[in-house]
């Protein structure tokens, strides 16, 4: 069968104005689809559009070429206004081969009728297996109703570049700039920025490919879109969550990050390793996760609060050391960029499975603060807040990010540097006569800590039960008193927090509660439902331990309450699941036990961010129940 040529342009076509569009660029890994997608996202953000980019990452380092599992690329949701999440299904895909598309189709990531711009070189490939696979897949996609546009990207690039495998992504970027009516000059500037460290000849070659792609699209495509931007007045920056975390470390006044490589946390440390020294900071790569945590604790003990950044398995390994910091009341910030678990789980996939171990982890009663950034901007500010809380309360503060926040990009207001973010110099003044290293305040449990170098403050901190002088103590009263003091600090912090903001009206039929990165999708679903007349609202909990005040009062103003989470919960419809054995999702368990409110839950662990349309469907079903 020969392909129809859908690329013939018949007359001038009108540009369709849209509110938003989701576009994907996918290829074998190493073909530059990631870079193309990131650049497109940045160009859109420069245009003043809202964006949310999501990385499509193959699980293996070098997957075979043209394999379903090998799809690598980027997915960009472009909107007229602020975009808070990755959205639903994809509207347009650029694919460098047909195999990488199959996984996306299987996972129902593509919208029915989605436009597919497909590299056409495979049709005439000398290997019969490849050409047959291509034409069969093409036929199936067309039959399934996708709007497939075969495009000779390779052939066109060959006119400019001897090795079209390099640079095809910039050709695609040029096409996309035409399709979305983006300013080509902005694209040129973006390329200059992206390849800034390379030679001018590299930048020029890429700009040529960009222009060729644009020119080809002008001549051959019979459609284009415009997503009018509503630019904000504030200057914007675009980063992913891990970069935002690292910028937060830089701005928080912390001077040391001690880490061990682990996906998906490590890119924060990569970036920090590159830039931290410029402001006198150090990234120490320790021999293992335990050492990374112990090193951070040693540094915190002797100086300013330090940070250790990890993901699930590393977080598990650090538990005993975290308990030590709790016991000795040494400030410490621990970032856990959550991934799929348990065990090695799904290293590159999103999950919110570590909430319980963040709160209850480490043996014995080890109270620590647990926070969860909800947006990329939050990733930045949460580190500054975490450092301040850690030092003010001499506590461990756990910041739970996730694999979605870590690699997604979003524009946000450029932070205005504030001196008060930085940590004050450490106290080296003599300790007053008679002062004790753990002189717990009777009401708040707080005690001033003595830092080595302070004359008169000499004492030995210990992970053993200890009294106000830090002397090892087996006295029943002392153990009771010290656990009380460490617990009270959480209550003292809780008294300083404010109630979460309700998205939607303050009362209604259904309240959706989430934490972390699901905020954008939940709020969007709420907006859609409210537009349909449903009385649905949402809250997002930034603090999981202690919990903000006013949560019970908010819940009581709704007829039904349910959490939306990306961790495990049993489905009550299962044959052997009933109220006596049903395992709720993590936040639901916490809310039910704390507030004695009948909080239902919905959760899934597909390794994907939860979509607004999914939440809408779940909420509607819950309303009807």
């Amino acid at each position, binding site marked *: 069968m020969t392909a129809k040529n859908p690329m013939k342009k018949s007359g001038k076509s009108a540009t369709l104005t849209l509110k938003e569009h989701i576009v994907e660029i996918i290829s074998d890994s190493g073909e530059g689809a990631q870079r193309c997608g990131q650049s497109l996202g940045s160009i859109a953000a420069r245009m003043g559009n809202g964006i949310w980019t999501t990385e499509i990452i193959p699980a293996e380092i070098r997957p075979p070429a043209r394999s379903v599992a090998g799809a690598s690329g980027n997915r960009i949701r472009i909107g007229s206004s602020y975009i808070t999440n990755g959205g639903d299904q994809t509207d347009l895909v650029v694919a460098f081969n047909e195999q990488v598309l199959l996984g996306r189709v299987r996972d129902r990531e593509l919208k029915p009728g989605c436009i597919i711009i497909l590299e056409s070189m495979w049709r005439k490939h000398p290997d019969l297996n490849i050409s047959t696979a291509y034409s069969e897949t093409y036929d199936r996609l067309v039959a399934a109703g996708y709007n497939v546009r075969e495009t000779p990207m390779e052939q066109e690039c060959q006119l400019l570049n001897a090795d079209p495998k390099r640079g095809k992504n910039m050709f695609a970027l040029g096409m996309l700039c035409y399709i979305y009516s983006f300013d080509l000059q902005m694209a040129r500037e973006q390329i200059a920025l992206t390849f800034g460290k390379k030679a001018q000849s590299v930048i020029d070659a890429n700009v040529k490919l960009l222009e060729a792609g644009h020119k080809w699209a002008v001549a051959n495509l019979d459609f284009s879109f415009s997503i009018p931007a509503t630019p904000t007045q504030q200057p914007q920056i675009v980063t992913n969550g891990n970069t935002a975390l690292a910028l937060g470390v*830089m701005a928080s006044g912390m001077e040391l990050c001690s880490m061990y490589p682990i996906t998906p946390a490590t890119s924060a440390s990569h970036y920090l390793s590159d830039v931290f020294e410029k402001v006198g900071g150090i990234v120490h790569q320790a021999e293992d996760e335990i050492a990374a945590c112990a090193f951070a604790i040693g540094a915190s003990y002797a100086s300013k609060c330090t940070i250790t950044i990890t993901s699930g398995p590393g977080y598990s390994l650090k538990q005993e050391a975290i308990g030590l910091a709790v016991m000795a009341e040494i400030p410490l910030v621990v970032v856990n960029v959550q991934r799929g678990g348990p065990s090695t789980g799904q290293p590159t996939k999103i999950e919110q499975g570590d909430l319980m171990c963040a709160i209850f982890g480490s043996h014995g009663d080890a109270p620590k603060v647990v926070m969860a950034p909800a947006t990329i901007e939050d990733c930045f500010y949460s580190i500054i807040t975490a450092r301040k809380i850690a030092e003010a309360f001499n506590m461990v503060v756990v910041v739970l990010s996730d694999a979605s926040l870590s690699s997604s990009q979003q524009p946000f207001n450029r932070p205005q540097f504030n001196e008060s973010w930085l940590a004050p110099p450490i106290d080296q003044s003599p300790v007053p006569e008679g002062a004790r290293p753990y002189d717990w305040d009777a009401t708040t449990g707080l005690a001033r800590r003595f830092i080595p170098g302070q004359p008169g403050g000499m004492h030995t901190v210990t992970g053993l039960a200890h009294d106000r002088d830090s002397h090892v103590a087996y006295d029943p009263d002392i153990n009771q008193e010290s656990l009380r003091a460490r617990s009270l600090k959480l209550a003292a912090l809780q008294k300083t927090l404010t109630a979460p903001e309700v998205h939607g009206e303050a009362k209604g039929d259904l309240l959706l509660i989430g934490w972390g990165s699901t905020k954008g999708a939940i709020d969007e679903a709420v907006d859609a439902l409210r537009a349909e007349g449903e009385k649905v609202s949402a809250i997002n909990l930034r603090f999981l331990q202690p919990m903000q005040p006013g949560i019970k009062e908010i819940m009581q103003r709704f007829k039904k309450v349910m959490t939306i989470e990306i961790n495990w919960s049993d489905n009550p419809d299962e044959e052997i699941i009933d109220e006596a054995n049903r395992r709720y999702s993590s936040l639901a368990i916490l809310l039910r036990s704390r507030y004695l409110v009948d909080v239902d839950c919905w959760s899934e662990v597909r390794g994907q961010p939860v979509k607004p349309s999914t939440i809408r469907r779940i909420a509607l079903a819950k309303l009807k129940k």
Partner: protein
Amino acid sequence: MKSSATDCLLKLYDEQHGLEDYQSGVPRWCTGCGDNAILAAVQRLCRDEGLRPEKTVFVSGIGCSSRFPHYMKTYGFHGIHGRALPVAEGIKMVRPDLTVFVNTGDGDCCSIGAAHWIHAIRYNMNLTVFLHDNQIYGLTKKQASPTSPIGTKSNTTPRGSYLDALNPLTITLGVANASFVAQAVDWIPESLFDIVKAAYHHQGLSFVRILQRCPEWLPKSLDPWMQDPDRIQLLHHENALHLSPGLAKVYKNHLVHDPMDMNRAREISGHEDIIPVGILYQNREIPRYEETRQTGVLRTTETVRKGFEAELDKYSV
């Protein structure tokens, strides 16, 4: 890491400290335990060197010997099992102005903390590390440790331990960047003090294995060496320790050993019938991690602000 100018409020002390200024509490070790001898040597070192108690930190893990910091009137960090070294590294990294000692036992260092031991040697930070090696777990009441001689009867090896002991000296000498390796025994106080002092003065990680008696669980284990002075071989060299006439008279087995000679050090450290006491290896040229990692940036609010704004510029749209 450079401290900001305001961090460095130095007050110069010229006061003299006596032994009692370093003593805290009454050690709860058994009578005859080698830890007492090590404590005495270290307190004497602090006094002789005039170490300021507030600028001195003893870091330990878990075990009998790890109680050590509680008996020093300095700052102390009694942490968790096996992790004394990374804690001490963190302290030294951000506070090179502090004098940091590490007290760790054979279980703490050579078993649960073995990974940190290997890497601590490689970092070569300016730490003085005492391996209190009594060849047995004491605090948990007699289990075989990695340095227990094969056949050691213990609560977990009632018919005798199954494996050859590991030799902490040969292992340390096998790791890149080893810069100071010595062996001492608790029952020769003069030599113990000389070695502790040399370790303190070494710039870099000084690793001192101290063979010590455990009168409670392995009372006879070191008797062959205690009762026969000829089985102790005192190492000396013009560039290392010098033997006092008194010591040389009691312990007649001497060996001139140049601590720069790594091959010879490895050979001697493997000897078991006659054990070497003294400095096996010393190399003053090996870089120290905390110095290698100095950024050279004086950290002020202005430096941070400028660096931060420059990064934001990269991400501006």
